[in-house]
């Protein structure tokens, strides 16, 4: 789109995120929360909305919601209530969803994101608890209802309209996801639906203080699609305004195939949910002590962790971010770093090889101590980098000590100068062509000689020493 037009207008974005809490059981009944199970195998009369059934609040869900609220800098309300949101749809057995409309569990929080202009605070208006609906599957003209997901606990997070472009919004989503992952309250997998995002986007002329008409965008299934949807919508609305048109307040669907947003329903057709307080549940009362107790259980959050990695371990920002991207792996790194004499070496090892192995083997390293051991061997020159990678791969899923493994498989580095001298001499004697090539200026020949020594020592020779020796002997 025309840069001039783009610069004339300002994009205003607010987000509504739903995250499934990873409690063992549902929010109002004892059914297990499952993913991918056979349809209707984790249901009961309560979550199926049978007559005469009543909701009983899952305390763990409250704990997770409160923890998430604290991690997001929110005020946790000592008193909050549940309300009924009434509408008819086959995936909603009771004909209403139990949610928190009037008095949510938390409000007034924030998350800081990195933008090109430095740090920016994105306000969080509120966080509340609610139950998930079931799933409808459309097949051959028949619609089937699976109620396994019905009653799974959700938290809904609503942001202030503080984001000004798609990048900022995606930054926020990434930060939010990471925060919730570190809190251990949700798996945040957009592809599995444990994290969902709706976008509210409006456009106004730069300098205006009022807001333009807000459009809601649904059906966003990944951060990339979120980005695409927002860029498209900004362009769409700006074009309308440029042509002196009016943007209609409506709900639109993001269409993955075309990368566009398509109108779903207009404002007039928006449902009246007839909210009123849920009579089957009392006031949710949280004491000061309880909230304090939870505050003390908050683990190191992303910002603090990044500082730790960049300052204490002297990692670059990018490296720190990569290392932090998976909490379970980061915790293993933490344990290993404490035992390692060179956390920087450890970090590099994980960044260069660890993540690759993580993906290949689809498991996390069994013993954090082994990572420390390998990093120590590397740092002290007792093992070369190639062999270090071999050892890492070999002991990844095992409880065997890494050093023992390296020793028994002759992977430790040979640093004995006199021993190496003999091998280097041999290599020179047995490669007259390489020697003459090198002497006539071909650098590649030098590499070949090094290679011969390496082959002879099964990769264990200290490459630096070998290089030095070769240079000396070939003078």
């Amino acid at each position, binding site marked *: 789109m025309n840069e001039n037009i783009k610069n004339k207008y300002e994009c205003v974005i607010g987000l509504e995120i739903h995250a499934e809490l990873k409690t063992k059981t549902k929010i109002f009944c004892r059914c297990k929360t499952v993913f991918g199970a056979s349809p209707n195998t984790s249901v009961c009369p309560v979550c199926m909305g049978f007559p005469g059934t009543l909701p*009983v609040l899952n305390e763990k869900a409250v704990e997770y919601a409160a923890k998430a609220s604290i991690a997001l800098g929110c005020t946790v309300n000592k008193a909050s209530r549940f309300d009924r949101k009434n509408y008819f749809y086959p995936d909603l057995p009771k004909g209403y969803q139990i949610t928190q409309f009037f008095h949510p569990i938390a409000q007034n929080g924030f998350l800081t994101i990195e933008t090109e202009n430095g740090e920016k605070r994105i306000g969080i208006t509120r966080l509340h608890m609610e139950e998930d609906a079931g799933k409808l599957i459309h097949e051959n003209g028949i619609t089937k209802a699976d109620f396994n997901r019905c009653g799974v606990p959700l938290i809904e997070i609503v942001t202030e309209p503080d984001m000004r472009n798609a990048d900022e919004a995606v930054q926020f989503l990434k930060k939010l996801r990471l925060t919730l992952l570190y809190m251990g309250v949700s798996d945040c997998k957009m592809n599995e639906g444990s994290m969902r995002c709706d976008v509210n986007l409006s456009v106004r002329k730069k300098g205006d203080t009022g807001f333009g008409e807000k459009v809601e965008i649904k059906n966003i299934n990944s951060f990339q699609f979120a980005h695409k949807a927002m860029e498209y919508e900004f362009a769409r609305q700006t074009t309308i305004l440029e042509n002196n048109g009016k943007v209609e307040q409506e709900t639109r669907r993001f269409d993955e195939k075309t990368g566009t947003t398509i109108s779903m329903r207009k404002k007039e057709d928006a449902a009246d949910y007839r909210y009123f307080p849920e009579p089957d549940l009392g006031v949710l009362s949280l004491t000061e002590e309880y909230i304090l107790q939870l505050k003390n259980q908050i683990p190191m959050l992303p910002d603090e962790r990044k500082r730790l990695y960049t300052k204490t371990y002297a990692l670059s920002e990018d490296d720190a971010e990569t290392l932090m991207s998976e909490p379970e792996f980061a915790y293993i790194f933490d344990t290993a770093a404490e035992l390692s004499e060179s956390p920087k070496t450890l970090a590099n090892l994980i960044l260069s090889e660890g993540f690759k192995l993580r993906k290949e083997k689809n498991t996390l390293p069994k013993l954090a101590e082994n990572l420390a051991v390998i990093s120590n061997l590397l740092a002290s020159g007792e093992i070369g980098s190639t062999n270090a990678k071999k050892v890492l791969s070999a002991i990844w899923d095992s409880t065997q000590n890494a050093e023992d493994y390296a020793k028994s498989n002759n992977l430790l580095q040979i640093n004995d100068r006199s021993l190496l001298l003999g091998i280097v001499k041999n290599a020179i004697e047995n490669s007259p062509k390489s020697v003459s090539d090198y002497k006539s200026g071909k650098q590649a020949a030098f590499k070949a000689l090094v290679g011969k020594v390496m082959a002879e020592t099964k990769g264990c020779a200290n490459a630096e020493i070998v290089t030095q020796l070769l240079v000396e002997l070939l003078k």
Partner: protein
Amino acid sequence: MKELIHLSVKELCDGYKNKEFSPIEATNAYLDEIHRRDSEIGAYITVNENICVKELSANALFGIPYSVKDNILTKDIRTTCASKMLEDFVPPYSASVCEKLENIGAVLLGKTNMDEFAMGSTTENSAIKVTKNPVNISYSPGGSSGGSAASVASFEAAFSLGSDTGGSVCQPASFCGVVSIKPTYGLVSRFGLVGFAPSLDQIGVITRNVYDSALVLSEIVFHDRKDSTSANVECKDYTLGIESGVSGLKVGVISDFLSDGADEEIITAVKNAALLLEKLGADVEEVSMPVLKHATASYIVLSSSEAYSTLSRYDGIRYGYSPSEEENLDALYTLTRSRGFGAEVKRRLLSGSVFLSQECFEKYYRKAEKARFAIIQSYAKAFEKYDLLLSPVSPTAAGKLGTSSGNAVERFRSDRYTCCANLAYLPSMSVPFTKTESGLPVGILMTAPKFCEDTLFRASFALECEKRGEFA
């Protein structure tokens, strides 16, 4: 010797203990009476064909035959709520109170008729059958627990469990000349009571005398984790102290209810009951609670709103009535709900949806909430001075079948005395006191502070002793 079916619950318990007769004999006696009388009375929708009397045990209520209103779920026994919507619904689980009664060996005789989904005051809104008042079969037994009250009054059950949202236990009991108690909100578990208006619903007990009422209530009061509104109470024996009389009890007669259009005979009955309590040693005086005149309006709005939401689950998808035509989703909802629900239910659901709508929410729902709060305050203030409040149960005695007022609001107004206790979460009890000239029973309504059921039992017991013989 009295016939087995004429024995009270207490007398049956004593008889079993003394081996004068067995639970099987008593059960058979009741079943015989049901087969003899119920084709005329119509109290039962379903008679339990699979009765098995358990081995002898020392539990209170062991072997006592009882009936249950058909909106209280009983595992594997059809539970219809007197509606087409649940005509063939067989629940896979029982209400907590029914589970308890089953465990202690009480004998479930069957499920009783009611106004559909508990909405009504004459049981004529039942989609299944008509129930007649055993005292005079041309008259209605009241409602919505009409079948429950009738089954007890016609000796077709030793006691019955009903449900009360705005008077549905106290009023039919009064109309049929039997005793009832609607407990404090939260005292009796609501798990398995088909919801109508959850902040008002309570399960109540109907018996032929006050002592039985205390006996039965004692067994169904327990904290239930499946019901989040269940009070954290310890089990209590409500028969203890029941004979302590009313000496020194401070009784307030709600004067506003004696001058708002109730029948003369009803007003006289309440005044006489007040005099009698005074004679028995209570301090009785009139008290004015003008805020209570808003009770009906508040009740209409709140109960209809909650009902609209609570009955949204009946959509023909997972259970209950479903139309045989397969069309689109809209058609499914429309056909299921227009055919499954009767006129009164639809009227209330539609009203509820209006009261909760964006345009009306503040003006109706929020206002009704405020009125409710004011009513609660009014009772709290009254109970600073009084231990008990006295009022009529209903502005009239039972009405002739088929003569219910055509005006919906007028029909609600007949609940104006009983619905106050539901709005204020308080316990109330109706006890038979006299009869109208035409022979219809008139009861007295007593309301006590929260969890003061024993005061109700004391006062009712005292009145009953004085009036013994009038209700043979």
